[in-house]
């Protein structure tokens, strides 16, 4: 007799919400336990964090509706049980966070520089930008304009750099460091790969020395040793000395990144360039470097992120960048004890900049992968 075999059960659903949950959260009992545990912790923490940062937080007024002017008026000081963050400290000090102690009458100069920075940088980042060529001309002269605009000259009142602070110092250090380190890095990278033994040894020693010591020792070097090296009468202000240290530091890292790009260029490119009679500099400027830089841009952006974060180190030698202004605000007795708000705000500002930069580098990597294949064309 033919027995009818029992029909098999349908396979477990792998689509739809339930299927998705089963695949991604409860695929086996260990995964289920982990998911439940993580879920439990998230339920504990996320509402608390949201409540603290947003729903129970003071922005300008406390829960009595009074404008907050000192720490005693913060809801979390008046009512430690229910009060959230007291963002009033950021509100009150916002000017300092953005401009430091830049004179209020002259602050339009900083704002104009910020706006021009956007105009100078955005066309540089996206090669599909309309009229990019003309914008890039502006990018080249922007540093000069910004220098005179911020520092004074040509009829503008001079504002000494010790009045600069907050985001202004962070951006000046970051942008100038990156912009100056880029050409220096190219020269060092070419130097390290040079056939001339003296030049390659010197470049290698310089790069390895800088990469072997922490940035903070270079900043100390700029602060305490540089003045000793300069002849009498030549004075550099604090910001300039720090800039020298930051630029030297960044150029060594930039050089290694660009060297990586140079090594990726097939030997045939060099030989082809030489065989059509190009000189060393023509070969590098017209054939090798454009390709090498193109493939190393993602890594260049990544080291630039590193530099941007490292600019916070200048507080150790006494400059007031974003973090420095934050610490200054905390030292003020009217706002004592609001450390978390200040650090949260400063972290957020840095996060926005660095996260945007890291997304940009990812975007470039993707574009490069789908772009022209190096050496094969």
């Amino acid at each position: 007799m033919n027995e009818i075999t029992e029909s098999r059960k349908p396979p477990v659903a792998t689509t739809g919400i339930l299927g998705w949950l089963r695949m991604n959260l409860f695929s086996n009992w260990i995964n289920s336990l982990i998911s439940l545990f993580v879920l439990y912790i998230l339920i504990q923490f996320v509402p608390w964090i949201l409540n603290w940062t947003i729903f129970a937080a003071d922005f300008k007024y406390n829960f009595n509706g009074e404008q907050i002017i000192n720490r005693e008026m913060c809801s979390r000081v008046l009512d430690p049980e229910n009060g959230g963050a007291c963002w009033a400290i950021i509100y009150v000090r916002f000017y300092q966070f953005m401009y430091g102690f830049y004179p209020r009458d002259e602050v339009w100069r900083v704002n104009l520089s910020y706006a021009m920075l956007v105009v100078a940088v955005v066309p540089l980042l996206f090669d599909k930008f309309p009229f990019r060529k003309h914008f890039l001309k502006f990018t080249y002269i922007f540093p000069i304009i910004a220098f005179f605009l911020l520092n004074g000259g040509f009829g503008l009142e001079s504002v000494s750099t010790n009045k600069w602070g907050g985001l202004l110092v962070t951006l000046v250090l970051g942008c100038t460091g990156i912009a100056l380190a880029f050409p220096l890095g190219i020269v060092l990278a070419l130097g390290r790969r040079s056939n001339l033994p003296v030049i390659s040894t010197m470049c290698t020693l310089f790069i390895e020395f800088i990469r072997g010591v922490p940035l903070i020792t270079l900043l100390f070097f700029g602060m305490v040793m540089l003045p000793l090296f300069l002849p009498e009468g030549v004075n550099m202000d604090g910001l300039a000395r720090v800039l020298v240290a930051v630029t030297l530091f960044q150029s060594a890292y930039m050089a290694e990144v660009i060297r990586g790009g140079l090594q990726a260029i097939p030997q045939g490119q060099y030989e082809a360039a030489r065989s059509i009679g190009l000189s060393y500099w023509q070969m590098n400027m017209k054939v090798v470097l454009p390709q090498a830089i193109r493939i190393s841009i993602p890594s260049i952006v990544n080291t630039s992120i590193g530099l941007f974060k490292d600019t916070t180190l200048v507080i150790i030698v006494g400059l007031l960048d974003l973090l420095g202004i934050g610490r200054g605000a905390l030292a003020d007795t009217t706002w004592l004890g609001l450390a978390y708000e200040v650090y949260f705000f400063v972290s957020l500002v840095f996060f926005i900049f660095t996260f945007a930069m890291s997304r940009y580098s990812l975007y470039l990597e993707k574009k490069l992968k789908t772009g022209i294949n190096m050496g094969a064309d």
Partner: protein
Amino acid sequence: MRSKLNFFSDEKFRSIFFQTLVIGLFALGIFFIVQTTAYNLEKRNIATGWRFLTDPAGFDISFSPFIDFKSTDTHLDVYFVGVLNTLLVSVCGCIAATILGFLVGIIRLSSNWLLVRVAYIYVEFTRNVPLLLQIILWYSILIQLPRVKQSLEFLDVFFISNRGIYSPRPVFETGFSYVFISIILAFISSFFIRRWAKKRQDDTGKQFPVLSSAFGLIIIVPLILYFIIGSPLSFDYPALKGFNFKGGMVIRPEFIAMFLALTIYTAAFISETVRSGILSVTKGQREASASLGLKKSWIMRLIIIPQALRVIVPPLTSQYLNLTKNSSLGIAVGYADLVHGFGGISLNQTGQAIECMVIVMATYLTISLTISVFMNIYNRSIQFKEK
């Protein structure tokens, strides 16, 4: 025809000419700097030389777990305390960051969607916020812990307060050195057992329980010896006397803040290199080993990790170097490392800026070079060897 007299178009001549020019300019620059520096130092009445190293320091260092430092000790002692503190936080940080980094890297490749997202958020947040900020943040959390009088207790022997973690300090009595020697011997012999077992397995295919025998040698033998000698180890317990704890061992909040921040920050970077390393092993390897019938844990241990390590180790090395260099940020929270103790306080007290900075930089260079040398040796040992 090219004229022989046109030296400049001769490549050899040009190369020598440029190199001589560079050396000349460099020497001129050095000469100029030395001249101005000597003049500036003379004007400021700063005597150069290394004599200040043997002068008494005149300040205290709150955290010096290896050397008993007193304010009458010399600047040279400050230097040694600083080097040891730098190495301590770097080594602890490297070990912890490696463990955490591997864990997070593997988690990010797991099949649990929620866990992957949490790990991703952790990595993005810690990577994109300056380390200095994180160190200061951890420190500001730690010093808000309860005061000494209300310190949190664990098992009546651990006390956590805003002055740090107090714990019992082991006191080694006579005879403990034998136990210590036996532990070292056990490690060495386990190493040789492993080599022998591997060779035997390669030759005959027989396996040897290496892990359990090593466990027995390292843990059980010293333990038996310990009891035979008569428990030559006692503990010095911390006790609250007046305003502070007496006795025991203390881990300062500066160290904890540095350790936590360095570990959490670097682990985020390490997790990314681990992730890309594991991803670099092609899918075929996994499928091939599965089709051979290997267990899941074996596939990871015997097939994936050895191949992934080849990709992971070079960037891991640079992360170790970064962590060591970043430990110099201890100055922001007053952790008495090389930069804060010797390059900061000693420099300010003696005014010997050039000497102090030269020593600090040379020390960091030495540490960096040592790490790279060892990691390069390790890297060579795991690279693919074609038989």
